[in-house]
């Protein structure tokens, strides 16, 4: 667990941005527009969207582990209601929910 680096703290509810833009994106399509919570603050990391094109990836961006209820991610999730899905998402892909 890292010290607070960005806008969000563990427990905050967040929504993944519903963006669709070209380039190297590490926010999976299936999670966009979904709402979850901050499980962990990973710290600050170089931005892969910039590194992918040979740029330096600066400034570092806060990265979080975001938790989701499976039943809220997939309309047809038929297994246990307790099941969860966790994705590492950059702050610039999150909005407060």
């Amino acid at each position: 667990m890292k010290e607070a680096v960005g806008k969000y703290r563990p427990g905050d509810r967040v929504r993944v941005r519903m963006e669709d833009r070209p380039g190297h994106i590490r926010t999976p399509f299936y999670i966009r527009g979904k709402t979850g919570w901050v499980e962990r603050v990973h710290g600050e990391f170089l931005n892969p969207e910039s590194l992918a094109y040979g740029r330096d990836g600066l400034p570092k961006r806060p990265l979080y582990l975001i938790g989701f209820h499976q039943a809220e991610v997939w309309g047809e999730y038929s297994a246990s209601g307790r099941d969860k899905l966790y994705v590492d998402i950059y702050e610039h892909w999150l909005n407060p929910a």
Partner: protein
Amino acid sequence: MSHDHLSVGHEAKQEQGDAHPRHELSQQAKRIYAIRELLIEKGVLTQADIQRQIDYMEARSPANGARLVARAWVDSAFKARLLADPKAACAEMGIDATSINEFVVLENTEKVRHVVVCTLCSCYPRPILGRPPDWYKSFNYRARVVIEPREVMREFGQELSDDAEVRVHDSTADIRYLVLPLRPPGTEGMSEQELAKLVTRDSMIGVVDPLPAVPFRP
């Protein structure tokens, strides 16, 4: 298995170690030999640079991960250290995890099972476990485990009650995840070495629990 015959100068001969004669390789596969030779000719890489990587991967296997898990099972203070700072805990055991940017260990319990995937490519804790199995990199695993993890686990022989919770981790950034599986029942008194034998690679990816204490007798 030694890979010295991969060094420069051997391309002209058919090597004992080659599964296929080189002229039978696909066009794509052949190109790596050309790329390697050109990079060395131009001084971009040396043979030693390449050999270093071959040796690095050869030294990495699930046995490393199994040692960490077995130690965590017998030593609760070590387990706490492993969960709090996995890279430091690895260093304690002579496992080099320095090339992992951020390392997180996910502890399984009676009620919670974790399973790891990289849906976007094939990110995997290679410094700890070595190369990922083909199935981990497959389209079917990457497509299915996030949406139907229990069905996938069932294919691997793992059944879970509805009481238990499955947590899928999609490893989309620089964090590398290792599952610390649940110690099987009936293993009290087993040595660390014996316990390590129960810890399979697949149990550290999370698709199955470790091996049971006694072999299954039908």
